[in-house]
């Protein structure tokens, strides 16, 4: 049923679009050819869903519905145009003063509309219903999501967002820098002699043991940073304390909330990595958000692996 409604919506949109083309005739046809110099060049990108997003001029009032979008807007030095963000958008610190429009999964559509944005940019965890609601209000929405890969965010998020914000030159610099940083880190990894066995804590204790399996992006990052993920043979996030004890890793990555608690919990405290002080806090956000800080995230993992050499 929902799918039919969506198809109907697409159908209606296409009809409307072709209709407006026919009605406005030449003028529209001219401005849509991007090479034309006379009229203001329209900004067109294709988003994650393959939808074509078009703006006549760079967005001035932007609402970011994901931390990675907020981070990227600031990295593109367009923080001034950001008028709304989610409660999870905690980086950079300047983002804190911006109006919050709800959570990642439950953005408040009314609050967004009240901000009168000319562009809403969403990423992962953004539902089709919310997309429909916003579009019904006549708000332009782009969904920009990176594939799970080290450099995937560059073309999927940074570049299209820069186009919509009119910051393409800055994007070029940013991507260049990012690639230099990534290349430098990968170069370091090549010189490593020892590949430490790594365990990455996603959850532990009462709620069971959770880690990043071999098919996850975090798992891939561990391998790229020169570590050997002890959960490489698992898929998804489930693990067990027994397997952790049996595989007794050389080094353990933990999120900041677990620091101190993990090392002092029974059984975990007996792990070799804990005993030898090889437990390191990793800022997960630099890795999983796959934004402009991904190089930083990789560097933090590489520096820990380097210490193990």
């Amino acid at each position: 049923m929902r799918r039919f409604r969506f198809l109907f919506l697409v159908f209606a949109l296409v009809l409307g679009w072709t209709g407006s083309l026919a009605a406005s005739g030449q003028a529209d046809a001219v401005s849509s050819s991007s090479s034309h110099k006379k009229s203001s060049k329209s900004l067109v990108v294709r988003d994650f869903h393959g939808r074509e997003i078009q703006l006549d001029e760079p967005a001035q009032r932007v609402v970011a519905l994901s931390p990675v979008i907020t981070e990227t807007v600031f990295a593109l030095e367009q923080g001034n145009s950001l008028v709304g963000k989610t409660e999870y958008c905690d980086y950079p610190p300047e983002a804190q003063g911006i109006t919050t429009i709800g959570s990642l999964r439950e953005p408040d559509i009314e609050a967004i509309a009240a901000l009168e944005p000319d562009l809403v940019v969403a990423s992962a965890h953004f539902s089709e219903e919310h997309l429909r609601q916003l579009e019904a209000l006549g708000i332009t929405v782009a969904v920009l999501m990176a594939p799970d890969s080290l450099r995937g965010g560059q073309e999927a998020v940074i570049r299209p967002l820069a186009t919509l914000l009119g910051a393409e030159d800055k994007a070029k610099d940013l991507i260049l820098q990012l690639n230099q940083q990534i290349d430098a880190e990968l170069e370091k990894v090549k010189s490593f002699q020892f590949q430490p066995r790594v365990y990455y804590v996603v959850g532990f204790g009462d709620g069971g043991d959770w880690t990043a399996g071999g098919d996850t992006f975090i798992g891939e990052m561990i391998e790229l940073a020169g570590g050997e993920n002890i959960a490489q043979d698992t898929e998804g996030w489930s693990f067990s304390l027994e397997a952790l004890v049996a595989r007794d890793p050389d080094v353990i990555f933990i999120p900041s909330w677990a620091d101190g608690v993990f090392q002092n919990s029974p059984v975990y405290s007996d792990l070799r990595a804990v005993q030898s002080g090889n437990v390191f806090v990793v800022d997960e956000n630099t890795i999983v958000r796959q934004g402009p800080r991904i190089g930083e995230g990789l560097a933090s993992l590489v520096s820990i692996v380097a210490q193990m050499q």
Partner: protein
Amino acid sequence: MRTTDGNAMKRFFPMVLFLLLVAAFLMAVAVGSHPIPLKAVTSILLHPGAGEWPHSWVQILWKLRLPRALAAMMVGGVLAVGGGTCQGLFRNPLAEPYLLGISSGASLGAALAIVFLPFGAFAGLSVIGLAAFLGSLVVTVTVFSAAGRGAFRLPATLLLAGIAVAFLCQSGVWLIMALNRDQVERITFWTLGSLSSVGWSGVMWLALITAPVVLAQMALGRVLDVMSTGHDGAHGLGLDPSRMALILLTLTALGTAAAVSVAGTIGFIGLMVPHFLRWVIGPAHQRLLLSSWLGGGILLLLADAIARTVTAPGEIPVGVVTALMGAPFLLVMARGKQQSGRLDG
């Protein structure tokens, strides 16, 4: 099964269950996500200090599998005994230990702790477990006092009060989840039940509470026999049925709360085990409750062994396994009963 030979069988049935429990326990200790040869298992368990096997194997057996298996046995046992008590008391095959809102009270306590005090321990028990324990007891007292003293003469009042309070607590849990979306997973997985983090302190805590509770319930088996035939019979024997019901339900609540505080709200065991055993060995409660303890232990040991190994090195929530094992079983049994024309065992 209901012939005269059946009587001898019924008498020996707890013995058979006991042997099965021992077998299930040994099996639970022998299997896990990490393969340890049987020879090493026995040698490590008999001579833990010998040092001829890898240190991690000793850790796994003594710090993980052994306490976990003991906990599974006691949790399964106390839940099944609680279910048997409730089914007898309410004269209803659908009764179970979570009936009085205990599980939703525990969930509310756990959810509050997960959001506000996610770490920390007290007397070797996690704050989340303690909050769940307190949650179940608070709910039980609330239900008892809300229903009023007369309620113990009329179980329906008690059940209604239990349902009302359960809904209240559940809405509290949903509210907490809605306001803390980042904790939804933790709360959900807690609710599904798991024995993954049970250590020796959890085992001691379980033993301290559930052993006296279970023994007291078995000792009151005769009283339960009378109560389950109706309150008139109880009056005739000079028993105060309201008082007996209060005592039996308080014991059930206490045992269930202890189980839930360690393992989360593992479903189906308290419903299925006593229900099945009542069908096999009849309604004499002393024997029924003893068998239920054994049967509940066996079932949870098996379910947890499956939960630990089937997706190794990962785990699945043990509550999922008990429900998967239990539901078809109950369906088959309900069908059998329909044919034999009796539904109350």
